[in-house]
C-alpha cells in the first residue's frame, strides 16, 4: 500500500484546504475507501479524515419544509429515524436494503454518494480499467459483464454506480451541498455523478477539495410519502448489490397521477433519473398500461454492454412493479425484507 499522510482537520475550512492538493481524498467511514487502498486500487497521497468535524451528523428540518441531512449521518441512523422514514419511505427502504447491518451502522450519507463502482475489473489491478487508470483500456467490455451498465455507458467504461440510497434521492430531486475552495455551492444530485464518456476516471463533477457537507431534500419531496417505494432485485437477500433497482414515487390526486418520480439503480454509472417515463405518467390514471408505457420510455435508450441484455427487460419489469407498488400505497410498516419482491412474504422474520 502506498504511504500516505493522514490529517484530521478541526473545521470544514481546514478540511477543504487540506484536501485541495492533488492526491488528497476525504475519509469518512472508509467502508469502501479502505478496501480500495488495501487492494492498491486507490492510491491517495493524503487522507483527510472528516469524521471529527462538528455539525455534519445532524438531520435538520428547515423552515421551508426541506430536510437537510448532514454528510456524516450514518445510514442506519437515518433509516431508523421514525420521522425521516415516514416522510421519505422509499429512501429509508433503499437504505435498509443496502449492504449489511454492520456496514449500514458505520457508512455515512456523504460516503455513500461517493462510493466507487463494484465492477470486478476496477478492483482487479491486473486488469485494464479506464476508471482506475485513465487510458489503460477496459477489460470488462469483452469480459464477464452480465452485471454491467445498459444505459449511458461508453466503449471506455461500462461500470455501474452501486448505491441504493442515491436512487430514491435522485428521483426526489435531492440537492448536494458542497464546501469548496470558493465557498459553499450546491448542485442537484443528478448532476453529481458523471457518465463515463471518454473520461471514466472522473466519477463526479466535484473539484479537488470539494467536500459534501449535506444532502438536502426539497420541500416537495415529502409530498410523495403516501406512494413511494424502492424495489431491488438481487442475488441474495442481504449484502448484495442490485442487479437492477428502482425507486418510484407518485403524487396521486383524484385518481390521477399529478406527478411521478422514477429512478433506476444498477443500470448506469450514475443513479438514473427516468424523466421521460415521468412525463408519460403526468396527469394519467395509475393503470398497468400507463406503467408499461412508462417502463418502455425509461429504457428506450438502453442497450446491452455485454452479456446483460436481460437487465433491460428486467429493468422494465421492475419499473412496472415499483410503480404498481407505489400506486398501491406505502405500507404502514417497513417491510420485514425491505425493497425485496418478497417483502410481504410471510415467514420473513427480520429486516
Amino acid at each position, binding site marked *: *500500500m502506498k504511504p500516505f499522510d493522514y490529517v484530521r482537520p478541526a473545521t470544514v475550512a481546514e478540511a477543504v484546504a487540506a484536501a485541495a492538493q492533488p492526491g488528497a481524498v476525504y475519509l469518512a467511514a472508509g467502508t469502501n475507501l479502505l478496501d480500495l487502498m488495501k487492494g*492498491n486500487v486507490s492510491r491517495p497521497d493524503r487522507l483527510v479524515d472528516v469524521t471529527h468535524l462538528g455539525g455534519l451528523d445532524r438531520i435538520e428540518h428547515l423552515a421551508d419544509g426541506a430536510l437537510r441531512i448532514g454528510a456524516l449521518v450514518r445510514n442506519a441512523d437515518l433509516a431508523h429515524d421514525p420521522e425521516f422514514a415516514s416522510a421519505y419511505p422509499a429512501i429509508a427502504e433503499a437504505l435498509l436494503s443496502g449492504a*449489511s447491518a454492520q456496514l449500514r451502522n458505520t457508512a455515512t450519507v456523504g460516503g455513500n454518494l461517493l462510493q466507487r463502482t*463494484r465492477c*470486478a*475489473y476496477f478492483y*482487479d*489491478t*491486473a*486488469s485494464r480499467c479506464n476508471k482506475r487508470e485513465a487510458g489503460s483500456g477496459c*477489460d470488462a467490455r*469483452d*469480459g*464477464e459483464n*452480465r452485471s454491467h451498465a445498459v444505459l449511458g455507458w461508453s466503449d471506455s467504461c461500462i461500470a455501474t454506480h452501486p448505491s441504493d440510497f442515491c436512487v430514491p434521492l435522485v428521483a426526489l430531486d435531492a440537492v448536494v451541498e458542497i464546501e469548496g475552495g470558493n465557498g459553499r455551492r450546491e448542485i442537484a444530485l443528478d448532476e453529481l455523478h458523471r457518465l463515463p464518456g471518454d473520461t471514466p476516471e472522473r466519477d463526479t463533477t466535484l473539484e479537488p477539495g470539494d467536500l459534501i457537507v449535506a444532502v438536502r431534500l426539497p420541500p416537495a419531496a415529502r409530498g410523495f410519502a403516501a406512494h413511494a417505494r424502492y424495489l431491488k*432485485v*438481487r*442475488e*441474495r*437477500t*442481504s*449484502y*448484495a448489490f442490485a*442487479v437492477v433497482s428502482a425507486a418510484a414515487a407518485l403524487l396521486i390526486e383524484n385518481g390521477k397521477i399529478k406527478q411521478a418520480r422514477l429512478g433506476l439503480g444498477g443500470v448506469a454509472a450514475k443513479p438514473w433519473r427516468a424523466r421521460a417515463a415521468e412525463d408519460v405518467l403526468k396527469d394519467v390514471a395509475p393503470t398497468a398500461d400507463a406503467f408499461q408505457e412508462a417502463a418502455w420510455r425509461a429504457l428506450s435508450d438502453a442497450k446491452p454492454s455485454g452479456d446483460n441484455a*436481460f437487465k433491460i*427487460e*428486467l429493468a422494465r*419489469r*421492475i419499473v*412496472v*412493479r415499483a410503480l404498481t407498488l407505489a400506486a398501491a400505497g406505502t405500507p404502514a410498516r417497513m417491510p420485514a*425484507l425491505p425493497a*425485496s*419482491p*418478497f417483502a*410481504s*412474504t410471510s*415467514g*420473513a422474520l*427480520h429486516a
Partner: protein
Amino acid sequence: MPELNLTSAPAHLRHGSNIGQPLTRRDGVLKVKGQATYAADNHPSGMLFAVMAVSSIARGRVTSLDVAAARRHPGVVDVMTSDHKPPLAIDPEIKTNPFVFRMEVLQSDEVRYANQPIAVVIAETLEAATEGAALLAPRYETLPALIGLDAGDSFVPPVVGVGNPTENHRGDVEAGLASAEKRIEAVYETPPQYHNAMEPHAIVAAWDGDNLSVDMPTQGLFLSRARIAELFGIAPDKIHIRSPFLGGGFGSKGLMAGPQVLGVMAARLVGKPVKLVLRREQMYGPVGHRAPTRQRLRMGTDGEGRLTALDHHARTVSSTFDDFYEPAADASHSLYASPAIRTSHDAVRVNTGTPLFMRAPGEATGSIALESAIDEMAWACGIDPLAFRLKNYAEVEPITGKPFSSKALRACYEQGAARFGWAKRPLQPRQMRDDAGLLVGWGMGTATFPALMFQAEARAAIRRDGTGAMEIGAHDMGQGAWTALAQIAADGLGLDIDRVAFKAGTSDLPDAGIAGGSAHTATAGAAIHSAGAAVIAKLADLATADERSPLFGAGNTGVIARDGKLFRRDDESRGESYTEILARAGLAEIEARGMGAPNPAAMEEYAMHAHGAVFAEVKVDPELGQIRVTRMVGAFAAGRIVNPHLVKSQLFGGMIWGMSFALHEEAITDRRSGRIMNANLGEYHIPVNADVPPLDVITIEEHDPHVNALGIKGVGEIGITGSAGAVANAVWHATGVRVRRFPIRIEELLTQR
C-alpha cells in the same frame, strides 16, 4: 497446548448411555468467549510474519521479481523465491501415494494457475510483509490460459475421485433406451466452486534443530505429518502438530496444502517461528476447489414408469499438472433401480489449481443433475416425483446388485413427505400461488452418501481416582468431535462424560485417520469404542482373577461397565468400583489401545450408504424471476445418531449448502485471463441468514450391524445431496421453466412470464 477447559452442557438431563444424548458442544463456551485457540492465534516468541505473493496470470512464467525493493522495505527480513529457498528432501512433484497432490512451493518459475504462490515475504510485522509482497511487482511471460469445460481435447482419465473406475456399467443401456416408452435426455452444468471456510488456511511453524512445531488447522494430522516428514527429510516423530480447532475444513484442509508447506519452508529459511495466513482471495487457487461439470443424463422408462436405462456421463476438468476428477456420474450407482446403468467420465485440462475434495465431491455435483433428471423423467411419465422414486426404489444396490447393510430411505420418504405436506402437490408446474401472487413450487430430491470407514487407533486409560482418559488424534472441524467422540469414549469407559479426560487434536496422540468422507465419527468412534472395551477387559481380568473381589470368577459370564463400576453380567447386584479394583491391585492407572478399521468382508457383502429425502418449497416472483426458498424438510437415515443435536446442525449446514449450490455459488472466471473475478465474500455469493428458510430435519434411526461396531454411517456431507436438486426441482414446479445450468440465475426465469 494447555488443557482445554471443555464443559458439558448443564441443561440436558442424561439417562443411560452418553451416546444418543443431545449434548451441546463442549467447546462452545470457549469459542463464545474467544478462548478457543485457532492456529493463527498462536504467537511464539520471536515469531515473524510471512505473506505470499501470488501470480496474476494463469499460465506462463515469472520473469522478474523486484526482490531488492521488497528487501529494502523496513521490517522485511527475507524474501523466499524459487531462487532462494531451503532445499526439500524430495521433489514435491513426486506422488508417493494416492493422497499426495502436487503443490506449488517455489520449485520453479512456472505459473500454472492464477493465484499460485510465486514468492513469500517474511517480515517483523504483517504490515511489512504485506507491503514487501506488493513491492515485488512481478513480471511475466504469459501464455494463453486454458479455461472452461471446452478448453482443449477431452480425454478419459484412468480413475475418478480416489481410485474409482472412470466407467461402470450393468446391463445394456442402449437396448434399455431403445425399448423404453418414454425417454429423456438433458445436459446440466455446475460451476467451479471454491472453499470459503471462515478460517482461511494458516500455519505457525517453528523449528528447533530438526524438531518442528506446527500449529495449523488440519483434517488429517497424520497425513500432514507424513507429508512434512518426507518433504523435509525428518522423522515423523520430530514433528508436533497442534490442531485443536478448525474454523471449517470441508475437504480443503484434509491434505497439507502448498501454502502451509511454504510456512514451514519460511521458518526454516529465517531460523525463527513464522506465521503464514492466507488472505481470502488466496483461497481461490492453491487449496483445492470443486471442479465444474457438464453432465449428460439419458433415461428411459417402460409403460409403468419403471426405469429401463440410466446413462450418466460427466465432463469435468483437472489442472494441467495433476489429476483429480470430480466423480459426478458415480451418483447414479446407488439410488435408482434400473436394469441398465452406465456411468462415464471424461475431462479436459485447465489452468486452475488442482480441483480437490469439497464437501461431497462427486456426490454433490452428481446429485443435482441426477435429481433434476429424475424429476424430468417423472414429469415425462406424468407421475408424481415421489411416486416415481418409490416405483424405482432400489432394493439392492443397482450397480453391484449387493444388498444394503441397512436402508431406511422408504421411511425418509414417508416421514419427510408427511411433515412437508407433499401429498397436496399438484402434478403440473406453475399451479400454485401465494396470497401475494408469487409462484409457489415444491420439489424433492433423494440424498445419499456412502458410509465409509478408515483406520484409527485410540488409547484408553482408567485411573485409580475413578476417572478415565481417552486419547486420539481426532479433528474437530466445528462438527463437534470434542463432544460426540467424548460421548463414545464415556460409554466405552463406563463413565459419565464429565469423568473422562478426552484428548484430541494433536499429532502426538494415536492416529485417528482423516476427518473426511463423513467417516470420522465412525472411524475414530470405532477406535475409541475398541480401546474402551480393551481397557475394561483388562480391568475385568484384574477383578475376576482376584478372589478378594466380588467379581471373582465372573470371567466366563462377563462383566458390564457402568458408572465407574464393573457388575457381573448375570447378577448386577454384585459389582465393584474401578477405584477399588485398581487400589487393591496397587495400580495408579490401567491402559489399553484399540483399533477401528473397515471390515473388508462386510464391505464385500454389503452396499453401505446413508440416505435421505429432502423436500423444498420455493417462491418465485413471476415477473422479476427472483427466487426465495421458503421452507425445507429433510429426513435422513444415517445409522446410529451419536448426538442428535450436533447431527441436526450438520444436516442444516448441508441443506443450506445445497440451497447455495442451486441458487448462489459460482466462481466467475475471466474467460481470457483465467483470473477469478469474485474471489471475495462480498461477490462470491453464499446464502446470508435472511436467505435461509425455516429448516426441519428428521433423523430416522437405523440399526446397522454391518457398517461398523457402533453402527454409525456419518452425516457430514449427505445434507448437500438431495437438497440442491430439491430446490432446483421446486423452481421448475413453481415456474414451469427447467433451468439446467447452476446456480439458477434470474435471467433464466425472465424468458417466460
